[in-house]
């Protein structure tokens, strides 16, 4: 019992204990806040990437695309584990606001809006047609005109708070989009002055996916129109990708494995067809594999951040070590007293370990509590700082993020708390061990022989 009473008294009677406690509180607070924000940003980014392509991507990075996709789509759609499947053309072109002399490169994304919305989060990304996505390519000012859905940053300005001010309805804006049509063999299908296909589309809605590359340089077009524009409508109809969404409960690797196996059989069965060689270029990937190049950078940043916090942890261990070394040195007389009344070295080790546990436990509880409070009001604090001093953590006119993520993950919190307690036990171990090895006569009778 004294092993609990004494550490508890040491905790609240010694000023130096408060120093150790404060160190742990600060470290836990910083780690909780930064890891939560960082993990939130990474998770949000992953979610947006997942939402952009569905669960599984079957396709090719070749701009030529691949044919015979319609039969395979039907076959996929008939399977129980598939919820929806949609073809997507992805190619590159030039965009020119009608009347201006400036052109810029864009990514052309050809979609069937209803199927694409079922498979991805597109239906939630558009602004004017959120409840009527079937008509997303129908401009409200003239339904006869061919519509397009540019990324939001192509048509609207973002202010420093990350907000846009879209008009009540899309304004009449003609966008001339040019593409270089390719033959199935990859050669330019046209020559001379007619080298490119150009067609004017009209702004019918805009998309805000939250992915900077898509929102600032992609334009969604009707599938058939983009097929023609990119020369993928003949001699056989081609697409770049099939995006697939699995039924709930289907595991990602399980679903992708099934699609891969189906595709392999489909390719074998259809060998010898005209331009059948294009099917060989097709790969089946999960959304994570498909978006790896984008996600990997964020994950790497998160890893670097974690490494930095390991350094913070090491610093904490060292500070706790120093504090406990001082406490043990200061309390060596107490150790002598304990031993003189029969306490063992193990008992001494336990007393200081329990003391370290108290420091770690209380430090992690208070650090987490302050972290939680700070995260709860982090957006309000940032808004206040911006209003008062013009300071913004992330300039929303540059970074495509909305609110700072502040959802505290209980799993992450438990890991941080356990790490803090472990760091305290580790930091206190050597001084405690030194204390436990002290001979009582060294501490009780220093002045007498």
């Amino acid at each position, binding site marked *: *019992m*004294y092993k609990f*009473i004494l550490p508890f008294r040491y905790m609240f009677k010694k000023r130096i204990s408060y120093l150790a406690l404060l160190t742990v509180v600060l470290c836990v607070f910083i780690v909780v806040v930064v890891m939560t924000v960082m993990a939130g940003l990474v998770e949000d980014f992953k979610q947006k990437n997942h939402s952009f392509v569905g669960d599984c991507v079957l396709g090719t990075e070749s701009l030529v695309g691949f044919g015979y996709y319609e039969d395979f789509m039907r076959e996929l759609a008939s399977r129980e584990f598939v919820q929806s499947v949609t073809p997507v053309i992805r190619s590159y072109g030039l965009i020119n606001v009608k009347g201006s002399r400036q052109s810029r490169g864009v990514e052309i994304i050809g979609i069937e809006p209803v199927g694409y919305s079922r498979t991805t989060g597109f239906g939630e990304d558009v602004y004017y047609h959120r409840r009527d996505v079937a008509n997303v390519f129908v401009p409200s000012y003239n339904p006869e005109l061919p519509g397009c859905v540019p990324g939001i940053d192509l048509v609207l300005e973002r202010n420093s708070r990350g907000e846009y001010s879209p008009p009540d309805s899309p304004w009449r804006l003609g966008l001339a989009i040019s593409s270089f049509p390719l033959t199935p063999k990859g050669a330019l299908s046209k020559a001379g002055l007619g080298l490119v296909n150009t067609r004017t589309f009209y702004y019918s809605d805009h998309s805000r996916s939250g992915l900077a590359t898509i929102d600032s340089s992609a334009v969604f077009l009707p599938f058939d129109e983009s097929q023609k524009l990119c020369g993928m409508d003949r001699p056989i109809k081609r697409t770049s990708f099939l995006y697939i969404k699995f039924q709930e409960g289907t595991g990602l690797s399980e679903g992708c494995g099934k699609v891969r196996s189906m595709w392999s059989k489909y390719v074998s069965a259809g060998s010898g067809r005209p331009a059948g060689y294009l099917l060989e270029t097709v790969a089946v990937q999960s959304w994570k594999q498909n978006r790896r190049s984008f996600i990997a950078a964020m994950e790497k940043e998160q890893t670097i951040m974690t490494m930095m916090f390991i350094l913070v942890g090491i610093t904490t261990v060292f500070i706790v070590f120093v504090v406990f070394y001082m406490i043990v040195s200061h309390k060596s*007389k*107490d150790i*002598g*007293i304990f031993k003189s*009344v*029969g*306490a063992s070295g193990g008992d001494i080790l336990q007393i200081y370990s329990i003391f370290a546990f108290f420091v770690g436990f209380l430090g992690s509880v208070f650090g987490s509590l302050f972290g939680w409070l700070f995260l709860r009001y982090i957006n309000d604090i940032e808004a206040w700082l911006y209003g008062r001093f013009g300071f913004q953590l992330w300039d929303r006119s540059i970074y495509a993020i909305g609110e700072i993520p502040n959802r505290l993950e209980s799993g992450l919190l438990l890991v941080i708390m356990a790490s803090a307690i472990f760091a305290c036990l580790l930091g206190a171990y050597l001084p405690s061990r030194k204390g436990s090895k002290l001979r009582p006569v060294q501490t009780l009778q220093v002045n007498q022989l």
Partner: protein
Amino acid sequence: MKKDGVILNCGKLFKSYRMGTTKIEVLRGVDLELERGGFTAIVGSSGSGKSTLLHILGGLDKPDEGAVEFEGRKLNDFGGRELDKFRNKKVGFIFQFYHLLDELSILENVFLPAMISVGFWGWISGRRVLKKRAGALLEQVGLGHRITHKPFQLSGGERQRAAIARALMNKPEIVLADEPTGNLDSATGNDILGVFQKLHKAGQTILMVTHDERIARKASRIVKLQDGKIKDEGG
């Protein structure tokens, strides 16, 4: 080496310390026997080795040569755990500077040896009885009204009385007192010696070391330690 009625004895005890390159021989072949129920005082000047001898007899330190026997068993043969138990149950230490724990109340200081002795669950089940005994011991040394006080709130004499109560908590076979009045004025010192004499009358074995012969005369047996050896004995 063992005799009937002898509770603690030692033979040919040697102990030296190093101070830099100098070797200081503190004990140079000490032989001593303590009878059960006796009140013995070891007298010697400062640096004569009396505290070192007391620590070795109480298992707080080890001799370079020689052996200490307690009830016929050599302390050298005791394992670490056994030696801890010996200090906890068989011996009660009283120090010149009281050595009470500042974080604990006087009552808590007194029942600390019992807490160590009975362990966590033993304390949970038997704490009322043990607290009662600690309270009774404090009453016995005249501190019944000070049980909730912290050591720093007590005078030197009161602290030493508390230390005596702590030493008696586990009903030890022998009380080892190291200059128990060395830090007290003469009146308070006499009070403490009065307590010792009462304990002796009640049958408690006591070994006290002091540099003051007047204090030593209160004991039933006096042993003089000079230059690391027992010089003569008186009674």
